[in-house]
């Protein structure tokens, strides 16, 4: 059984690389209500940047398509981020998740999924060739002791 989100947002934008900065900042702004530490906020921005870049570079290599982001905040300070494209899809997800593996040429390092995995608590990748890719990331934000309590 899945609990209901306390709050959620949806974003949709064309797969232009100039939107990468907007996307990670927008998600970080939404996450700020959960009172994350600066490190957690930077980790979220970095993971979102990787997922969005993948959608732009690999989902739509030769065209501009739509990138969709859903962010949900659950009780217990759990943040769920879904980055989705309706692009080309990934032929072999397991291979794509291997460190240093890339089909993106010398511009890419092949470390995107490794960084998402290391900065978030959970990472799920679903992809159907020709239909698109969906990346779901979860992170539990550490509870913070409020000043003066």
């Amino acid at each position, binding site marked *: 059984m899945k609990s209901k989100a306390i709050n959620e947002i949806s974003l949709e934008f064309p797969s232009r*690389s*100039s939107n*990468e*900065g907007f996307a*990670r900042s927008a998600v970080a702004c939404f996450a700020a209500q959960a009172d994350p530490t600066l*490190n957690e906020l*930077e*980790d979220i*921005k*970095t993971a979102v*940047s*990787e997922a969005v*870049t993948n959608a*732009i*570079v690999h989902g739509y290599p030769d065209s501009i398509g739509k990138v969709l982001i859903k962010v949900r905040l659950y009780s217990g300070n759990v943040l769920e981020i879904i980055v989705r494209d309706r692009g080309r899809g990934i032929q072999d997800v397991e291979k794509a998740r291997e*460190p240093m593996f890339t089909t993106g040429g*010398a*511009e*890419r*390092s*092949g*470390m*995107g999924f*490794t*960084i998402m995995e*290391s*900065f978030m608590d959970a990472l799920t990748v679903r992809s159907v060739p020709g239909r698109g890719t969906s990346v779901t990331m979860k992170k539990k934000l550490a509870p913070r002791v409020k000043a003066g309590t």
Partner: protein
Amino acid sequence: MEIQAKSADRNLLLEFSGELDHHGARNALREVELTIDAALPKTLLLDFGGVTFMDSSGIALILRAQQRMQLLDGSVAVCNVPPQARRVLDAAGISRLVTIR
């Protein structure tokens, strides 16, 4: 993403400032290669002191610069890496491949 180049006695210093993501790295990659090819340095120092955000695009840039320097029999080091960029480099294990100081 802006890059300032300073070259003296075949030591090339590249100072990066701004956001080093896929969008920013596109031009940066080209600029780094052109600057290396023009200066033909023995040592290359990448100063990340002004980098406000970095993702794996920064790793690709460092590895590309390193390949270029290997062709010239030169060395590469990265310095003044801010904490966020440092965590990205550590997650990818880059300190095993490139000198970070």
